């Protein structure tokens, strides 16, 4: 089967999966206690019957559940994610507004964790049993075990409050009016702490996994053969060991990539990063149904997309997978 045929089949399945996810999310969310009209009315500090009825009517909550579900799902089928009555804007616009910030943050964290994780893992495996190896694995364990939330606050405390090196939160300097290069530098500075905090955990995971996998593969017969052929250590490590050892890392990276949209709620909250994770969290608190469903759906689509990408990457890294399929 050609790669294109596989992709086509996967996409067809993906569409069905997404539809199921939309229905399931809708049902789950409506089963949760609380209703957006009461929340909105409640925030006003006063509410009467008339106000709540007005709001429910406006939100379409006065209609039977089946009708609401049908309206939503048929909307989704036409790529219409609905309207956020709370925020007075189409959901797709809200998500599009927040998407760049999130992708920048999670993308940076993804690259940092993957590159550093693999590099450190290879380095640790090459020096297995030596002090450098112990040092690296200890740090990895530390990062792995540290709660993200705490690490984030400590990073702010140290680098922003005490040392004053980096801005502690936000996406850019508010009201500075930077443009062009100055703006890029400004955003990059704001990006450092949240991206590192978010990246640390996965970096530790990649490192441990690369190290273990490298060590396992390095005892394989074909490595002995390569060594017997007189290849240099560096070439063996790069072409023979790493290439075979990288598969589990790719699997995991696929999983992390799937979380690029929804996986940064805590980091975005602590660093006041104006991304999707926060939009989802705040919408959940307000029971802003359409917005939450929209974010869920986009995240789900992302997970599915990256699963497909991961599959393709497998084939590139290890041609045997394609040959067997």
């Amino acid at each position: 089967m050609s790669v294109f045929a596989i992709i086509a089949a996967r996409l067809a399945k993906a569409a069905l999966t997404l539809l199921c996810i939309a229905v399931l999310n809708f049902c789950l969310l409506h089963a949760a206690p609380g209703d957006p009209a009461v929340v909105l009315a409640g925030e006003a500090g006063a509410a009467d019957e008339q106000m709540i009825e007005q709001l429910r009517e406006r939100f379409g909550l006065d209609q039977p559940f089946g009708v609401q579900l049908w309206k939503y799902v048929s909307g989704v089928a036409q790529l219409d994610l609905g309207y956020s009555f709370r925020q007075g804007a189409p959901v797709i616009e809200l998500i599009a507004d927040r998407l760049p910030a999130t992708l920048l943050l999670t993308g940076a964290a993804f690259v940092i964790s993957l590159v550093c994780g693999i590099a450190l893992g290879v380095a640790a495996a090459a020096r297995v049993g030596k002090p450098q190896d112990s040092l690296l694995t200890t740090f990895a364990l530390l990062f792995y075990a540290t709660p993200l939330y705490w690490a984030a606050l400590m990073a702010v405390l140290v680098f922003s409050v005490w040392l004053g090196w980096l801005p502690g939160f936000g996406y850019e300097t508010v009201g500075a009016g930077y443009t062009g290069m100055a703006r890029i530098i400004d955003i990059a500075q704001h990006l450092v702490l949240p991206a590192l905090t978010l990246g640390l955990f996965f970096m530790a995971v990649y490192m441990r996994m690369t190290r273990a996998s490298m060590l396992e593969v390095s005892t394989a017969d074909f490595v002995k053969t390569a060594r017997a052929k007189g290849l240099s250590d560096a070439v063996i490590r790069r072409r023979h060991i790493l290439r075979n050892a990288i598969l589990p890392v790719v699997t995991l990276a696929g999983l992390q990539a799937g979380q690029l949209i929804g996986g940064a709620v805590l980091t975005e909250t602590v660093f006041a990063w104006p991304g999707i994770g926060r939009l989802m969290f705040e919408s959940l608190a307000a029971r802003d149904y359409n917005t939450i469903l929209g974010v869920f759906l986009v995240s789900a689509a992302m997970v599915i997309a990256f699963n497909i990408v991961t599959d393709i990457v497998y084939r590139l890294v290890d041609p045997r997978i394609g040959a067997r399929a």
Partner: protein
Amino acid sequence: MNSLKATTFLIAAALAAPLAAQQAGGRLDIVVQPEPPGLMLGLVQNGPTQLVAGDIYEGLLRYDTDLNPMPGLAESWEVAEDGLTYTFKLHEGVTWHDGEPFTAEDVVFSAGTFLPETHARLRASLAYVDTITALDPLTVEFKLKEPFGPFISVFESGTMPMVPKHIYEGTDFAANEANNTPIGTGPFKFDEWVKGSYIHLVKNEDYYVDGLPYLDEVYYRVIPDAASRAVAFETGEVDVLPGGSVENWDVARLTEMENVCSTGKGWEFFAPHAWMWLNNREGPTSDVRFRQAIMYAMDREFMRDVVWNGLGKVPTGPVSSATNFYSDDVTIYDHDPDKAKALLEEMGYDGSTIRLLPLPYGETWQRWAEAVRQNLSEVGINVEIDSTDVAGWNEKTSQWDYDMAFTYLYQYGDPALGVSRNYTADRIEKGSPWNNVEGYDNPELDAKWFAAATMTSAEERQAAYDEIQKEIVDDVPVAWMLELEFPTLYRCNVHDLVTTGIGVNDGPRNAWIEE
């Protein structure tokens, strides 16, 4: 030589300047938490919206920290002897932010057409209004059906914001595109809202009060995490932390910093009053002796000192000491576990478990619930703490699914506006957590509440409310916990930030920064 001269000159200039000469210019960064759902104050009136939109929209009157009315959009006003006619003379030369003139027609539209449809809290007060008439472009007359004592207190910006007739007349108010770019008459104009980051307001150059506002711009910063908000203030990223935006233990720490001032003022109009609803309908809490036992069992002073870091005041009853017509001539419930135990024994409490629903507003409230459980378990009451989020809390309380539930409510300066709604039987309505949720039903007292609302003389009203407070405190319909104090933290070189009973909500109007 030159620089020496310059320095001398500067020193001389500084000495010559009067101490409180307001300086124009500068930018103020204020925390807003959570991010408001919208800024059109006529449609949304939650706390964050009032904070931001209080600079954009205005009411006819403003109120000082003793709740006396002050000129707002109305420069003078008159109340007729019979308490039925209120006449307002509007400020001359006021324009909306889009340049259109503000006239009496806008007042008639706002109070007569727009707000009755959108503003639940005001609707209850407007029920007393018979007609609203524009006598001339700068004069408006409100005629009431019957006297309504607190009527003079309903003209504040969050209660009766003036909205532009020329934009909203004949449209679907909630769906109007203009809601995203609010147009008011206030000292600041809406400029930009970057969702999730900040709201930017700029100086209204055409503001009708000469010289005001002093500030060039105001940024409302959205920072979702309480600890990060504290850090933002610490690092100088923001200049003002409005009440309630950081946890109490951080308040103490931040106030000790250099150039940081703190004030508890600016909440008098709201007078947030915290209590626990005790379900009067069923279970042990339906027995008045049980409810009294709860009051005696709790060490409310201790809770205030520990949970609230000493901020606030233990209340004597339903009316806050900051609100008009307060009385302390009532039964005082001191911490007396023996009395509590005696009451429980007398009623034959069987030790059944009582569910307590904390307010899901952060750590402080969680700890408060734990302190209550601790106190109650000391007299033998079993308490189980329910946990939920804000939406779940709304649902549970408005469906009466609780035994004890924390809440707090604003009082809006007058018992008839912000207190009686929680105690009269006509306000027992499922579906809203902002009425008589506990189910307290006392027809005799109801009659007194209603009568007190429609009296015209302040003395009469005081006497009536004295009586009501004395009686209701013995019934303990709810367990009054604390008159909350939300201190505002700000840099000491920001002056005149809190000058009214609504504090920072209209603070930037007069605020100025000393360089």
